[in-house]
């Protein structure tokens, strides 16, 4: 680890002020991603601005139409929220299968979304559940937030304060866990809003993506067989030593069908 200046931010404004003042500062939330990169000397920020003391950034607010998860809420708190389990269980379940217990008690939704790891779970929810990412400056539509591998629409000194999700009629998240890391090799969120359907896929590609052909087919007939012949193109997907692009493409199909089957019951 290289040396850095450490600041405990009093509130969001203070965090942003400290971030803008620093030479090459970084926000630290749960530190689950940032700390390993610091320890391995892969990153050397001049300043770390810790959001850990800002209680206003923690909490889950559930209404009939919208779920709001504040930026510093850890995955375990999302998973355990009783209102959320009732209103949008797919999202609580997604949070409950991120990494391991230690990671779930430290890692935050703000950190996860800001980091935009292609194998992270939350992006499937942000896009699949018609989400909006709220920052100290603005509201960004989920569909426009993730640009590519580890790249988002965030500006340099922008801090995520909350993520909003639209409550669907029904939704289900299916995840194929990486056997070593627990991250999503393929994660599929299927959500139905009246006649509209969203299918969002994480893990498989360099960036979370929707599958319009599946959405259209499911809007016609919300049943697993409706998408039996809808394939995603392996050419657009990631391949590595664990899973080839072809296998990921196959798994997107299988898991989308299973998610639909789980919703249909």
């Amino acid at each position: 680890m290289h040396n850095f200046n450490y600041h405990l931010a009093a509130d969001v404004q203070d965090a942003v002020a400290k971030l803008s003042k620093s030479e090459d500062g970084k926000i630290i939330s749960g530190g689950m991603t940032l700390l390993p990169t610091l320890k391995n000397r892969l990153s050397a920020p001049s300043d770390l601005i810790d959001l850990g003391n800002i209680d206003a950034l923690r909490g889950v607010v559930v209404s009939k139409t919208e779920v709001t998860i504040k930026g510093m809420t850890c995955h375990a708190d999302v998973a355990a929220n009783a209102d959320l389990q009732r209103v949008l269980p797919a999202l609580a379940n997604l949070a409950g299968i991120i990494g391991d217990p230690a990671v779930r008690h430290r890692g935050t939704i703000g950190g996860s979304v800001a980091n935009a790891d292609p194998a992270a779970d939350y992006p499937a929810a942000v896009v699949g559940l018609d989400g909006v990412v709220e920052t100290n400056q603005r509201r960004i539509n989920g569909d426009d937030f993730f640009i590519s591998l580890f790249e988002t629409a965030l500006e340099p000194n922008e801090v995520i304060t909350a993520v909003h999700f639209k409550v669907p009629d029904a939704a289900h998240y299916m995840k194929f866990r990486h056997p070593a890391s627990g991250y999503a090799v393929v994660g599929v969120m299927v959500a139905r809003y009246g006649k509209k359907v969203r299918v969002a896929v994480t893990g498989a590609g360099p960036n979370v993506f929707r599958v319009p052909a599946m959405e259209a087919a499911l809007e016609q007939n919300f049943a697993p067989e409706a998408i039996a012949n809808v394939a995603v193109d392996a050419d657009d997907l990631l391949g590595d030593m664990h899973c080839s692009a072809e296998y990921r493409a196959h798994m997107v199909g299988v898991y989308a069908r299973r998610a639909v089957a789980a919703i249909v019951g």
Partner: protein
Amino acid sequence: MGEFAMGQPVARFEDPRLLRGGGRYIDDLVLPNMAHGYVLRSPHAHAKILSIDTSAAQKLPGVLAVLTGQDWADSTFADLPTATGRKRRDGTPMYRPPFPGLVKDRVRYVGDCVAFVVAKTIAQAMEAAELIEIDYEPLPAITSTADAILPDAPRVWEETPDNIHFVHTEGDKAATDAAFAKAHHIAKQRLVLTRVTAASMETRGAVGDYDAAADRYTIYSPLQRALVFRAELMTTLRVPESKIRVVAGDIGGSFGMKSGVFNEVGIVLLASKIVGRPVKWISTRSDSFLCDAHGRDNVTDVELALDKDGKFLGMRVKTIAAVGSYTQPGSESGPVGNLGTLAGVYTTPAIDVDVTAVFTNTNPMRPYRGNGRPEAAYVVERIIDVAADEMGIDPVELRRRNLIPPEAMPYKTALSFKIDCGEFEKNMDMALVMGDYAGFEARRAAARKRGKLRGIGVSNSIERAAAPGFEGSEIRFDRTGSVTVLSGAVTQGQGHETAFKQIVCDDLGVSPNDVHYLQGDTDQVFFGEGTGGSRTAGIGGSALKMATTKIIDKAKKIASHMMKVDDVECVEGLLTSRSSNRSMTMKEIAKASLDPKNLPVGMEAGLNASAVYTAHVQNYPNGTHVCEVEIDEETGQVELVEYNVVDDVGNVINPLLLKGQIYGGVAQGVGQILMEEIRFDPESGQNLSGSFMDYAMPRAEHFPHITVKSSPVPTQTNLLGVKGAGEAGCVGAMPALANALVDAMSHLGVKHIEMPATPERVWRTMEAAKAARA
């Protein structure tokens, strides 16, 4: 039966201390004035070092020394000890590559030790290491074991143009050829035993402390054989052994990996001598993937010849095994030391084995739990299933037709084993009942309805444990009658403290609260060979039994003298005379033994005994594993749903310890079959599985309950009748699980699946089989 008697499930004495953070592992050691070292490692799999410039690093605040290969070469130290004793095919001695602590002009694997920075803090050392400038000229590298012998493969060592380290043959080639000539059926299969890493919970580490005044070296490091380690280290330090103290401390897992004298051990001692302070080096987890010795890694072609009834006539095994870039004493044993297991528990009359050990630009290899035993069991038990499938015989029935019957004991197999005892059919039948083999087809059909392919796999295995050798032990009663027990064995987590205290408490009637167990310090332990190869219960336990027997003999004499009787018996440590109806405890005798008036004339004062037990022959733990898997046909995901083990490890000292050993061994075998693998990029030679984000370890969630039952056939090869138990679980697990996987897919035409059977590989195997059928 006493509370601590053989067979009692005594809870581990060491656990409260270890679980509460009271362990003293290598990183817990802090010595006054201690400096910290960081090893700068090669980023290339193979390269020439054209130049090294350490001047900027030397100038950084806190830096005490920067050592390079030149410093190692200029020092009084010799290179590290290497493997000996094997030959090439033409009978010439094998090439023994030099193994310096730090390399000077050439790196041979990613992780090779190039420079060592010593500083007041580890942060300063790491900072300085980044300032070392090294000019490398990358060379082509070979990391594939199978390809290492190809004519155009890059050479790891100029001295071995064919990359062949040594060749070993075993068995009877002519008899095997003759057997194959009259075969009704020959089953053939290529099997790739992947490379894995021990991933011990505690990484390696070392603290070197040179005492200039006494001209004496102390090394603190996790290891397996403290006194053997000292003897090996002596050749490097070029001082008498008595000038070296080796201290092991608690050890957080080794599995063979920590058994050698590694570069960093030599380096911290050299550094300590140079900077005049103790020097600590601790491997980070990232380091451990790069620089720990690896295990397994061979490519084997096996053929089994059978007659028309399925009797095994002969077996041929041809293996290419990796030794990596450098060798160490014992590293040659992985490919050849346990080939006896290839004969299995069967009567196969002729076997021909041919092993070629090759250098590759990869980490050095060490024994890894089983050290060739799981590899060999995998080979024989897989080829039996292949043959059964091809001949249309039930795999259990095929095994049954070839088992060595108990009446045939002692039985000399076609390879090296002379099995003293074992009831193999009984083990198998017991395990088949536990695993309800008879009812399996109904479970398969039920699973099919749920979209799952269910398979069952069986393995019988046998291995050599407690190879001939010695172990030392000592029992010291102090003035107040409490006890210190010392052993040359070195627990790395197995629970020696519990097993040994059980023996002492049961034999001598002392309370475990009065007993302190001490190991791994060569200034304390007088003799021993350490722990490895499933030897400690048998050999170390027998040594302790000898010592308790000596104590009892002496105590009886003292008691007779004091009570003035001649009928003293010792029962669970109580010295009793029937005729006088009097008795004394061992504690009382121990206290009394320090007063000359209580001793017969000529007897030495005190109640102490040391013993060295010599094992002249090994023993043969064996057992049967039966497991079931379910495969998700759409995704290829595998779930292990049933696991049953019957083991014959002879008498059981403590069933809790035994089960722990079997569970852990099974987990390691399952890990290798389903997920673990060290992989190198074939072009660059980079280690692609360098962290737990890429190297998958089995977790509790991957296992069903494992049912373990013992079917002990006590061995006469040692005083306790115990056979080894440390490796058995791993030996049986690999083939049982692999057989279950193939069985689940065999209706599709699948004959074999390589390890690790990741979901994608399983899916592709099924798809390829379906395509071939279509």
